């Protein structure tokens, strides 16, 4: 009689343990999947993202720096506040924040593949000499362009 009770308790305990382990593993799988998907998505987006600075000009009369960029990747690129612009040379470093973007040959406001965007950077002081320009977009993809005035 006591042996039957002991066996029943052990059997129940084993099943409960198995269910507990199963539940723990099953709850872990979606989290793992989500992490893998998130890492993959980030890398997929970076691989699909590519742009090129095709032309840079300084308008000294209204102190603006004009930058033309081409989306040469295979995905829409977001150009917004999370985009960084750096302008520097051996004696000068600037991270202008007063700028705006315009899509020149698109049908909407999205910067789609093949389309050209123009950034107008306001308030650039008198530029003279050689400069390096770097544009970094939200996912860290960047492009550098060297020019002289």
């Amino acid at each position, binding site marked *: 009689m006591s042996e039957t009770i002991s066996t029943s308790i052990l*059997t129940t305990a084993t*099943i409960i343990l198995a269910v507990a382990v199963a539940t723990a593993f099953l709850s872990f799988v979606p989290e793992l999947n989500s992490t*893998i998907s998130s890492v993959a998505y980030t890398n997929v987006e970076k691989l699909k993202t590519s742009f090129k600075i095709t*032309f840079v000009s300084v308008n000294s009369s209204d102190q603006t720096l004009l930058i033309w960029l081409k989306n040469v990747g295979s995905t829409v690129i977001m150009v917004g506040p999370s985009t960084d612009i750096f302008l520097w040379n051996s004696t000068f470093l600037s991270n202008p924040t007063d700028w705006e973007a315009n899509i020149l*040959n698109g049908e909407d406001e999205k910067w789609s593949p093949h389309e050209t965007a123009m950034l107008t950077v306001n308030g650039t002081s008198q530029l003279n000499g050689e400069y390096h320009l770097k544009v970094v977009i939200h996912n860290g993809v960047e492009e550098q362009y060297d020019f002289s005035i």
Partner: protein
Amino acid sequence: MSGFGVSISTAICIILLIIVSIGIISTTVKTFQDLNEAFEANIHTQQDVLRTEFKFLGKITSINKRIISFYVKNTGSKSFSPEELTFFDLMLNYQINSTNNRLAWIPFSETDIIDEHWNYTFEGNYWNNPSSWDPAENISITIQINVLLASNSSNFLQFSSSNGVSVSTYFEVM
């Protein structure tokens, strides 16, 4: 009874293992497919850039200081569809008088609806694929500007493809 419990537990563990494996494998396979597609797209983009090359042919001419014409030869191994050609960029930095320059990004337009625009026509032999700009073929570009070129001026023109490859040249206007 004990054997029954062990069997049930083993069955639960095996089912669990199968579910976890299916979950992980399906996610991993999907992830690898997405990464593979992205890699292929990236490589395709880079190969396209390497295969893209074009050059100005002959002289850049101006009619009435309002129309600029030139020829471009596809010297690479990539073909461009008419849709891709519409995404080419044309930058013009030109003298409007003896002291002032004007920099303009000229939009593409097939019609004269836009006052300032550029357009192209296929030139030469198009027996191979008449609907695209193929290697060794030429296109004729015509630019119409709304601020006239200055006489005896030195001007700059840059022509960039839809994948960011550029050619540029200076040209004189008498």
